[in-house]
């Protein structure tokens, strides 16, 4: 039979009622909390008992104190006088239990408890507000991209997975902040009448946020096909874990050695900063080395190109090189092909055609039109200023006859200022969109061949 266990319930700092009820439930199950760390609450087995718990804050305590200060001990003595025994503490958090089923509460003056919570909030809320703004910023950017550039967003495993993490972070921070402020408003009113208001936090939402983060990371690890990047992500996660353990280990070691609070804080902070910089530098150097040595690649290579210059020109030239890259998620895939001759290999005065094209396969019909719109807007930000100082677009798409391509819809890119067509095309078939950018004018026969080769 196990004698020890731990759990991790990420209670909000103000949810002292929630914490106490949880600990009471554990005590009834025969588990008494004995230690609180950043990784959770640790329990030891006891007789199942109905105990009353109170979670409170001793604001002058610090996680870097080698042992409770005189003031903290005096506070514990006061509590012991009314039967409240210290079960565990971590920094400012103090957990007491009482065997009396109806003890005198530790706090009997609601206004004082409210003031204490207010001081605690002034420490905790700036970080939460910062995280809320960060989550809102990146979450909003993700939602904006979902509507206006779904191809960029949904073809990348990393972009797809990180958006929900930011959104759920913003949701939790916002909900938790609202819960706290609502409780505070009600508690202030009740305190005027000498009454307490139980707290109610959002730890279930935070658990959901953590689950989304875990799933997001797992999805990136499983689905990211960029060579070497899975290793990079794993290395970064390992380094974060190492940093966390090193910082906590340093602090706990110095506490065991009875180092004074200021010394412990200074050394731990120094270890934290130095190690964080060293580890980030190591990751950055490793990443650059990997990219340079070809161990990593920004994007995975795509399968053989469906269309090649040889198909269109009828002749082969072994100086041609083809870059083929692919990004894909369950929602859509984007394959980019580029066939060209290095300028160093081209003969002076030789006109060498090139062929660039992008094939987007949309697996979710709902997204199809959004993807077409994104590609039609692709060069909207390529602008120039006229002599009158007016800003004009350089390119625009004009609908063209799809028949020569055997496609459903076709647009041709035009130079808007000169009003002349370019050789670039946007071709649509059900579920597939292709941006074709040959460096030369295609004949009707070449269009038919390209359409046949590029059709889904």
């Amino acid at each position, binding site marked *: 039979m196990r004698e020890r266990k731990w759990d991790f319930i990420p209670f909000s700092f103000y949810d002292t009622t929630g914490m106490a009820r949880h600990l009471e439930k554990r005590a009834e199950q025969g588990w008494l909390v004995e230690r609180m760390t950043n990784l959770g609450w640790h329990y030891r087995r006891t007789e199942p008992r109905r105990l009353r718990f109170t979670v*409170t804050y001793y604001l002058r305590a610090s996680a870097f104190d080698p042992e409770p200060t*005189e003031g903290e*001990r*005096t*506070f514990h*003595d*006061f*509590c012991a*006088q*009314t039967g*409240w025994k210290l079960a565990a503490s971590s920094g400012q958090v103090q957990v007491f239990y009482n065997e009396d089923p109806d003890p*005198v*509460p*530790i*706090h*009997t*003056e609601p*206004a*004082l*408890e409210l003031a*204490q919570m207010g001081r605690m909030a002034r420490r905790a809320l700036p970080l939460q507000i910062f995280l809320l703004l960060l989550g809102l910023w990146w979450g909003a950017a993700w939602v904006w991209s979902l509507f206006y550039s779904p191809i960029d967003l949904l073809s990348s495993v990393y972009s797809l997975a990180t958006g929900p993490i930011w959104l759920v972070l913003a949701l939790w921070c916002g909900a938790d902040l609202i819960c706290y402020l609502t409780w505070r408003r009600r508690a202030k009113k009740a305190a005027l009448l*000498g009454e307490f208001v139980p707290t109610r936090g959002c730890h279930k939402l935070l658990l959901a946020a953590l689950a989304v983060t875990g799933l997001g990371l797992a999805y990136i690890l499983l689905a990211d096909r960029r060579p070497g990047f899975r290793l990079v992500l794993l290395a970064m996660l390992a380094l974060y874990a190492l940093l966390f353990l090193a910082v906590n280990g340093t602090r706990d070691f110095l506490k065991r050695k009875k180092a004074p609070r200021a010394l412990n804080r200074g050394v731990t902070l120094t270890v934290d900063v130095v190690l964080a910089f060293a580890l980030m530098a190591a990751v950055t150097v490793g990443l650059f080395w990997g990219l340079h040595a070809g161990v990593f690649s920004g994007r995975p290579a795509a399968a053989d190109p469906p269309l090649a210059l040889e198909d269109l020109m009828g002749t082969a030239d072994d100086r041609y090189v083809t870059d083929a890259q692919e990004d894909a998620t369950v929602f859509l895939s984007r394959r980019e092909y580029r066939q060209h001759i290095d300028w160093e290999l081209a003969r002076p005065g030789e006109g060498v055609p090139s062929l660039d094209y992008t094939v987007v396969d949309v697996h979710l019909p709902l997204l199809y039109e959004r993807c077409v719109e994104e590609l039609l807007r692709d060069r909207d930000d390529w602008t120039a200023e006229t002599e009158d100082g007016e800003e004009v677009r350089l390119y625009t798409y004009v609908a063209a006859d799809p028949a020569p391509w055997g496609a459903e819809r076709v647009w041709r890119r035009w130079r808007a200022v000169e009003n002349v067509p370019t050789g670039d095309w946007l071709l649509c078939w059900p579920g597939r969109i292709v941006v074709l950018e040959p460096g030369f004018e295609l004949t009707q026969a070449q269009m038919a061949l390209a359409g046949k080769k590029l059709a889904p």
Partner: protein
Amino acid sequence: MTTVPRPKFQTLTEQMYYVLLCLKEECCGMDIMERIPAMTGGRVQVGSGTLYNLLEQFAQAGMIRETRAEGRRRSYILTDKGKETLSGEYRRICAQAWDYRAVFGEEAAK
């Protein structure tokens, strides 16, 4: 409607009142926790955390002063400022009682 915050300790809560009352004579926190229920027949009880905070705040406000410390056992006594605050509160309570009698009469107050 806006509420103007009251100056600290301008009026005392029941618990603050009895803590100060106990400190007419020198005593420590533990004694106060025992004296208040005894003095009020168990009607008023002060929680340990509340008492700890009140003693600290009263000392900071100069309403009580520390007289001696034996280990962690610290004793306090009321200062002149504390006495003044306490008597002000007493007068306020008396005024309330007087007003009650004025409205309901002597018989109803018994």
